[in-house]
């Protein structure tokens, strides 16, 4: 068993800020990330940074990573890359898998800064080779320097979709079609993307990028069974936190997009606060950091954070928010929806469970995501539900009228990732 003062999981902007702040406050810090370098989502984005302060603003995101690495080295943070934190147990120990095996880590405090995953919703053809997530497209374009296709369609209408259009065009691809509503998209082709239809337009294309936005990924905190609250803005549950970002489990903090932070600046500011709080920094320092965090947050997000912290209900917002592409996807996927063309589309990519099969499980009485999972195997594949549980919740909501706020996430159990058996066998006691 290894020990550390503060274990920070995830080395994106939130995790790096937490590690730097905790170390600045005198704690021994171990920063763990599954990738080969730190940086999280910064690693593959090229948009100019804003809101991170001196020495970073204005740089393309991927070029800021080196600066952050230098700061971590100077701050004497112990950085473990290629290391997956896959389990958080009752006794507070963390299981970590590395290429060479694995170990258990006992930390006095834990900061979960595991970020988000891309939101994806099923449409006909979404499993064809050539359909990929926004992150996959950015990784190919900027880390591997390969175009995902020459003629590309982009699904989504928010800021992420706009960034993707710029990225694709900057790298020399042609954006042939933009579609805001995934429920209106049909992709077809013989073994790969060849045609995309949306909004009554049909275009030849060789790739389709799904850029619907991001979904928090606080899996380790879910394993620890912390209390959750519903965010109507994101349409999912988030860990409840104190003003110092501590969860209902003492000593366990969640910061950044894993806790629903809206963007980079907020993730960075949250990380800093969680790091200082976990390290027990002086009240003056913490107060100043809280002020900086309040400035980094949009008014809408501030209201949400307060509401989650105080446990007040969000009914009005739940009822009001019926126009998003999420809801319209749910309606289209029901038996009465669109033209039933979604019935044969895979909802769960891994286990190849169709929307029709999930609908049937709901008709036969499934009332929760866990029920659907047990009856159909949807969500039990290698991706561990990250690309399908959102769609399951929307379908439950649309078919049964269960408010999304009452549909709790799947029960999370270790491992958080498929891990090689050696990691279990070789755990050092």
């Amino acid at each position: 068993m290894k020990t550390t003062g503060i274990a920070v999981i995830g080395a994106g902007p939130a995790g790096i800020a937490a590690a730097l702040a905790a170390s600045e406050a005198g704690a021994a810090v171990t920063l763990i990330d599954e990738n080969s370098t730190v940086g999280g989502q910064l690693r593959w984005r090229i948009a100019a940074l804003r809101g991170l302060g001196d020495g970073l603003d204005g740089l393309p995101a991927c070029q800021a990573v080196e600066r952050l690495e230098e700061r971590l080295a100077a701050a004497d943070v112990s950085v473990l890359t290629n290391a997956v934190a896959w389990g958080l147990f009752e006794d507070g120990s963390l299981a970590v898998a590395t290429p060479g095996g694995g170990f258990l880590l006992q930390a006095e405090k834990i900061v979960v800064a595991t970020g988000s995953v891309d939101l994806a919703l099923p449409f006909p053809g979404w499993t064809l080779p050539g359909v990929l997530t926004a992150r996959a497209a950015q990784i190919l374009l900027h880390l591997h320097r390969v175009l995902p296709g020459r003629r590309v369609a982009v699904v989504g209408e928010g800021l992420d979709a706009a960034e993707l259009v710029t990225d694709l065009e900057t790298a020399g691809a042609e954006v042939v079609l933009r579609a805001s509503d995934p429920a209106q998209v049909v992709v077809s082709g013989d073994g790969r993307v060849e045609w995309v239809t949306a909004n009554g337009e049909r275009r030849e294309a060789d790739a389709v990028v799904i850029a619907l936005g991001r979904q928090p990924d606080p899996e380790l905190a879910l394993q620890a069974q912390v209390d959750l609250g519903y965010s109507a803005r994101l349409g999912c549950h988030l860990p409840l936190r104190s003003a110092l970002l501590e969860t209902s489990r003492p000593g366990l903090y969640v910061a950044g997009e894993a806790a629903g932070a809206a963007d980079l600046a907020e993730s960075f500011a949250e990380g800093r606060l969680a790091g200082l709080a976990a390290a027990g920094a002086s009240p003056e320092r913490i107060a100043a950091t809280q002020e900086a965090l309040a400035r980094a947050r949009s008014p809408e997000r501030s209201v949400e954070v307060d509401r989650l912290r105080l446990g007040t209900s969000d009914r009005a917002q739940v009822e009001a928010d019926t126009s998003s592409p999420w809801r319209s996807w749910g309606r289209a996927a029901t038996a009465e929806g669109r033209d039933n063309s979604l019935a044969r589309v895979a909802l769960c990519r891994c286990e190849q469970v169709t929307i029709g099969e999930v609908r049937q499980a709901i008709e036969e009485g499934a009332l929760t995501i866990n029920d659907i999972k047990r009856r159909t195997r949807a969500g039990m594949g290698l991706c561990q539900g990250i690309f399908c549980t959102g769609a399951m919740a929307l379908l439950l909501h649309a078919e049964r009228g269960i408010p999304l706020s009452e549909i709790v996430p799947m029960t999370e159990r270790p491992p958080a990732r498929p891990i090689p058996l050696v990691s279990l066998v070789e755990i050092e006691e």
Partner: protein
Amino acid sequence: MDQAHRNQAGDLRVLHHPVLGDLPESRPVQITVDGQPLLAREGEAIAAALLAHGILVCRTMPGGREPRGVFCALGRCADCLMTVDGEPNVRACLIPVREGQVVWTQAGLGRWEGRAG
């Protein structure tokens, strides 16, 4: 905005990029994909080398033969599982190319073929 150039070989690589600059020189690495030789760039992931040459399919799903290719590029979806040097279920989006590597499109759950070489 500067349109990036591509090379004539039908290659999908981004050789010139307005923000990232020119693609640096790299040592070519020869791999074999489904029996055919393929030139990759040192350090890149197997799936990137395949995509650069217009190869999108990494595996077919158990049962229906449905083809799959890179979806998440982060090691999380398992759509890119290939058989590499006899080992099935290798994530082609994460594992780098290596000189002499033997890569096969994986059918279904794949099977062990014993290590080559």
